[in-house]
């Protein structure tokens, strides 16, 4: 052995020297390169600096060792067949190390990037799996190619499998990437109040990797696919306003007309029947036009004024009755007394009875109210406005008109809630000051919405 070494020492020492030289150059190059890299990355303030340096520092030196081995073997006197095999193994180890490094580096950098977004943990996990699988497959293909294996059938198979996977999960993929877009652009956040293109509005309760969940004021949960949300026109009102201790529950008031069979052919009969009439009759004849002719502005006068004018052909008394301002009265009894008082005063000043034709009697109708809760609740003014846009005119009618008579004060249910829940006396007063009898119900709805929107802007 010693004898062989004395004769062939150059065959051993030269490759060894080459290998050691690469090791030394590797150490020097790593030191120079990473010192400069660290400096320039520190200056740039890039968040991935530490990960990049820590992850690649070891492999960088490892690749110099591999390079040293490769060159040393090339200069060695090992038989050609063995030499080729060893070089191929070294090259394969190099490919594997590159793939391994790319996997580790991309996962760590992605983790840093995604850690800013709390709601994408699940999609991030799936993306990492996909990335890792892709890199492994690519590395494997390069290795097989390097070792001379036929690749075409394999690539074809992989392409088909990939195509099937992509087709089967294209919606999910679209939703995942849209989820990134929503989160990265901060389009919506949990707790935001948004309105989507369909007109539905509500608070965002969850942003998932496939859907955004919205809870509407009528307690409906809307699940919107992320890909749909990014294509929609959405209005984001931002975070909730001050919450009321008790949410406002919208009710609706529906009614049936009940015929009494009572009818008047002259003013005396009209007054006498009216005197004994319950509130539900007075209510019908002073309010039904608001609903039936809600598209007309100005709306027709109360039924008594119309009948006296049309059927009794008495325009003066008709005007006097039409001029009684329903808005001034907070009880039907006082409104009834005012109507009777005007008619009685007129009869004193203008004695004589005038009868109408047989077909034009005044028919007394009363109202049967059916009050039903709706599914709509509002816990802040933003929700309140959105619900107000949606409720029926019957609901608006109940909370604005009937409330005054129910509460027997000049307040609507809306203004009472706004005053009590938010201490917004000015806004409540402005709503109370709207005169609901001089506009259409749609006009009234619009005015209330405008007042509140101006306040919460």
């Amino acid at each position, binding site marked *: 052995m010693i004898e062989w070494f004395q004769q062939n020492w150059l065959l051993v020492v030269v490759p060894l020297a080459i290998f050691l030289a690469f090791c030394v150059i590797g150490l020097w190059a790593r030191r120079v390169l990473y010192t400069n890299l660290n400096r320039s990355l520190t200056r740039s303030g890039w968040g991935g600096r530490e990960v990049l340096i820590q992850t690649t520092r070891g492999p960088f030196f490892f690749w110099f060792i591999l390079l040293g081995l490769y060159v040393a073997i090339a200069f060695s006197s090992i038989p050609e067949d063995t030499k080729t095999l060893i070089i191929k193994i070294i090259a394969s180890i190099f490919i594997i190390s590159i793939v391994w490094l790319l996997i580790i580096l991309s996962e760590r950098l992605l983790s840093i990037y995604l850690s800013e977004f709390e709601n994408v943990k699940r999609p991030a996990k799936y993306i990492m799996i996909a990335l890792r699988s892709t890199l492994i497959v690519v590395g494997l293909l390069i290795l097989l190619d390097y070792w001379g294996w036929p690749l075409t059938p394999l690539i074809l198979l992989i392409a088909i499998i990939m195509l099937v996977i992509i087709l089967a999960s294209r919606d999910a993929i679209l939703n995942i990437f849209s989820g990134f877009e929503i989160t990265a652009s901060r389009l919506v956040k949990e707790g935001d109040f948004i309105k989507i293109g369909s007109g539905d509005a509500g608070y965002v309760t969850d942003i998932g990797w496939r859907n955004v969940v919205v809870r509407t004021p009528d307690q409906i949960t809307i699940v919107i696919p992320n890909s749909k949300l990014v294509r929609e026109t959405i209005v984001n009102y931002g975070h909730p306003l001050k919450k009321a201790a008790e949410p406002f529950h919208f009710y609706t008031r529906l*009614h049936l007309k*009940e*015929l009494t069979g009572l009818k008047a052919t002259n003013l005396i009969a009209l007054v006498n029947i009216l005197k004994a009439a319950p509130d539900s009759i007075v209510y019908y004849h002073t309010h039904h036009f608001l609903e*039936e*002719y809600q598209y007309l502005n100005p709306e027709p006068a109360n039924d008594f004024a119309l009948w006296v004018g049309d059927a009794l052909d008495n325009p003066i008394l008709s005007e006097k009755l039409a001029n009684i301002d329903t808005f001034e009265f907070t009880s039907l009894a006082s409104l009834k007394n005012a109507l009777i008082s005007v008619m009685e005063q007129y009869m004193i000043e203008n004695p004589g009875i005038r009868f109408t034709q047989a077909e034009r009697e005044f*028919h007394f109708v009363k109202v*049967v109210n059916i009050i039903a809760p709706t*599914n709509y609740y509002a816990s802040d003014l933003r929700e309140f406005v959105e619900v107000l846009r*949606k409720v029926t005119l019957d609901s608006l009618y109940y909370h604005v008109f009937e409330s005054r008579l129910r509460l027997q004060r000049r307040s609507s249910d809306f203004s009472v809630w706004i005053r009590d829940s938010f201490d917004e006396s000015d806004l409540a007063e402005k709503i109370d000051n709207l005169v609901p009898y001089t506009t259409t119900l749609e006009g009234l709805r619009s005015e209330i919405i405008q007042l509140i929107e101006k306040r919460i802007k």
Partner: protein
Amino acid sequence: MDNAIINRYKNRLEDYQPIVGKNIIDELKILGSHLTGRKVQNVNSTFSGGGVAEILARMVPLLKQLGVDASWDVIEGDEEFFNVTKKFHNALHGQEETFTKDDLNIFIETSRRNNENMALDADIFYIHDPQPIMLVERKKSSGGDWIWRCHVDVSHPDKEVWKFLRKYIVGYDATVFSAPEFSQQLPVKQYMISPSIDPLSDKNREMSQSEIQSVLNKYGLGNGKPMVVQISRFDYLKDPVGVIQAFRMVRKGIDCQLVLAGGTATDDPESTRVLEDVRECAGNDPDIKILPIPPGSDLEINALQRAATVVFQKSLKEGFGLTISEALWKGKPVVATAVGGIPQQVRNKVTGLLCHSVEGAAWALKQLLSNPEYAAWLGKNGREHVKQNFLITRHIKEYMLLFIAVNNPSDTINL
């Protein structure tokens, strides 16, 4: 219920949403949730022809969609029976009719046979018009709430007929009329529910110009003259002769054409006689078209109304006169007599013009033909008025409110 009828009307509740709004549909669902599973049995005299059958054919499937277990049955009767009920109908409208003892016996015997044969199984029995009124005799054995729905103008009924029917009416838990003028002094509750039109029906849906034109061509109406149209059954109470007289007064000064179109109902044997009288009155006038159209010609009616310059409804008596709402829904100016439920639909000079005579009808027609802008304004208001008050969604709502309120004595019901 006749399955063929059910199959004809497949509209879903949601189909009405673009017309009336989501909130109205939601409101109906809220009411429906309070009536889920309640059985409501409707009974009338015919599955086809006339306003009642038309309303029930649409209402019943929609009530079912809302959770109400609604059904529809008809009584049986021969020609003699329907001749008597037609006389009842005319007498309730105030027309003079003579009733023999035999007439009443025919009515009572047929009704008793129906009472024996009809399967009654419901929580609420909703009986329409006088023909099946005697079913209430089974109230004791069937239980449930009984409602009599009167679709007829009974503002001035023949006293004898009313007295006869009243015996049965007072047996009901509640009655329903179409207008305040129809209310009577009764010991039972009387509600007012107006009928309605279905905006998605063939009679009221939107039509293309080519569809309209093809109907006009079919009836030879393409001469370009302003067209005055009255659509109604050939019935003396619709005064088709009065319409011709008014039209002739107007045509002296304004060139126009008149179309009188209408069908017949299986329970209306009188219509053939009326049609003969109308034809005689029209003579060979080339500007007057008499079109007896068979039941189910809804698209033809729709096209005629849409092609009309002015729509007439010169009824002498009227239950409600749904053809008015149909015309108003199409934005047409209307001239109509102030009878029955018509003033509810036509508020004079706001949603149309009311008249009380042939001369009044002629004068109103002249106003509209010579002032198209005014006519268009009335038509626009009319459409809004129908949208608010006379669409089927409002009707369903009131039916459900009635079912909720029928045995509740309070003026305010909290659900």
